[in-house]
């Protein structure tokens, strides 16, 4: 990666709001200019250069973030283009409200991955999020478009209130998957023993469009890119919201 690298300087954990660190905002800025920018953290704010060690590079080529012990919230929130790679874990609201670009998190992600930021009506509206580990609750909440793929497990209320888009979780979800879902797809990497609440059993078959999803994920190394099947059990719902969404459980 020839882009800008940011390595957290401290060992102890600190919470940082990363939503200002987007490739489109940093493109064309020098490393010194970026180092002088403030970031909200720990109830106050600090200069990026005090929090992170910056290696020179063009942010337009992408951001490489090494979080160390920091808890980085809102990584890639609202990003519209470019690439962000987190070589570690991300906190809450990673990729929330994202419109475009690629966000790759090697480790775990917190709550509201690709979800909705407080006070806003919609979650993710485009782009691709790939998570190597587990994710927290409300992944893809109010998602409108785009793809979120999680190689581990996701928490409760995954794909809740989604309007469209695709969430693919290899390890299954916590309670209430697809709650209030209007449209969209929640793809699970393991069989489901029963239809989730609010969903009707739609039977098992091969789903051609999953080939297209696999092609879209090429190069991410995510679980569905490696999955050898497109056969899945379909559950249609949430029936309380018109029943146009779906949960697909790979069999």
């Amino acid at each position: 990666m020839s882009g800008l690298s940011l390595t957290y300087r401290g060992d102890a954990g600190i919470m940082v709001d990363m939503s200002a660190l987007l490739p489109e905002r940093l493109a064309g800025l020098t490393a010194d200019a970026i180092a002088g920018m403030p970031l909200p953290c720990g109830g106050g704010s600090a200069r990026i250069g005090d929090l992170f060690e910056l290696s020179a590079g063009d942010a337009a080529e992408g951001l490489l973030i090494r979080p160390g012990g920091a808890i980085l919230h809102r990584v890639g929130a609202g990003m519209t283009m470019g690439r962000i790679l987190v070589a570690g874990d991300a906190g809450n609201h990673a990729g929330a409200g994202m419109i475009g670009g690629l966000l790759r998190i090697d480790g775990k992600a917190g709550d509201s991955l690709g979800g909705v930021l407080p006070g806003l009506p919609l979650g993710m509206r485009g782009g691709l999020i790939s998570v190597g580990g587990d994710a927290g609750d409300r992944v893809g909440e109010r998602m409108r478009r785009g793809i979120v793929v999680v190689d581990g497990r996701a928490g409760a209320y995954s794909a809740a209130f989604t309007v469209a888009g695709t969430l693919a979780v290899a390890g299954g979800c916590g309670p209430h998957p697809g709650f209030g879902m209007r449209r969209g797809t929640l793809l699970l990497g393991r069989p489901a023993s029963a239809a989730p609440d609010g969903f009707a059993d739609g039977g098992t078959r091969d789903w051609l469009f999953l080939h297209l999803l696999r092609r879209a994920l090429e190069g991410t190394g995510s679980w569905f890119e490696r999955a050898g099947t497109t056969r899945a059990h379909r559950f249609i719902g949430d029936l309380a919201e018109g029943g146009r969404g779906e949960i697909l459980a790979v069999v």
Partner: protein
Amino acid sequence: MAELQINGVRIEDTFAEAFPMTYTRLVITADTPAWVDAATSSLTGFATSVIGCGCEAAVERLLTPEETPDSRPGAAVMIFGMSTGDLAKHVVNRVGQCVMTSPGSACYAGLLDGAKRIPLGGGLRYFGDGHQIAKTFGDRRFWRLPVMDGEFVCEDSVAVGKGIGGGNFLILAASHRQCLAAAEAAVAAIRPLPGIILPFPGGVVRSGSKVGSKYKALIASTNTRFCPTLRAVEPETLLSPDVEAVLELVLDGTDEATIRTGMRAGIAAAVAGGTGAGVLAITAGNYGGKLGPHHFHLHKVMA
């Protein structure tokens, strides 16, 4: 200009006259090559000439599973029309009636870049009666229409480009059998080339046309100057007494260079056997330059 002969076959000093067309490319996939053939045969059926069919279409080439979006066998089909609006109407009708109805099929855009796009799944989605589902992966949008064998997956829209229709050459031979053999060789040489289709049956036209007719209702009629059976009564006949049959190859392509390449390959294959194979001359159809701006002079094509 000096006379040009290849393997003893006379190449007439004339030109093929072609005209601008709008085209698009579709990628059709299915579970097996046989069902790809079923879908594309239907899709391209009755699409030989804009004169009577509204559009001209044929399979450009077959695709391996590695080349298709859904990793299944497929084919690239090119469809040519006289305008973007005309093309849009025919594409949606044909895909809706011939591809969506074919078991296991899917339809994707084979032309992604272009300033203009025409609807594909975007025009067919309402067949889903409210159960249709849109999926956007990257910058491509697809529709999933529930059908009785599962889902018909269809790209939302496809780009259109400016192409050329009506590239052609005629084979003049000593017998029908020899004329057909030369035409088949020409078709075999042209079909592997990218960006070209031969929209007529088997790639060959026997009823070449001229503009107009003695009947007011017809805009075209048989090309009497190349009809061997009329040689004795057609004062403008262009056939010598030893010509028994004439067949034409019509090429639609993406640009002039592609048409030229196709004509050159086809003519070279047609005359490969020389006069010993019964091929007497190669000529081309034109209307004195009044039909279109693209002129393919045979001597330059074969230079």
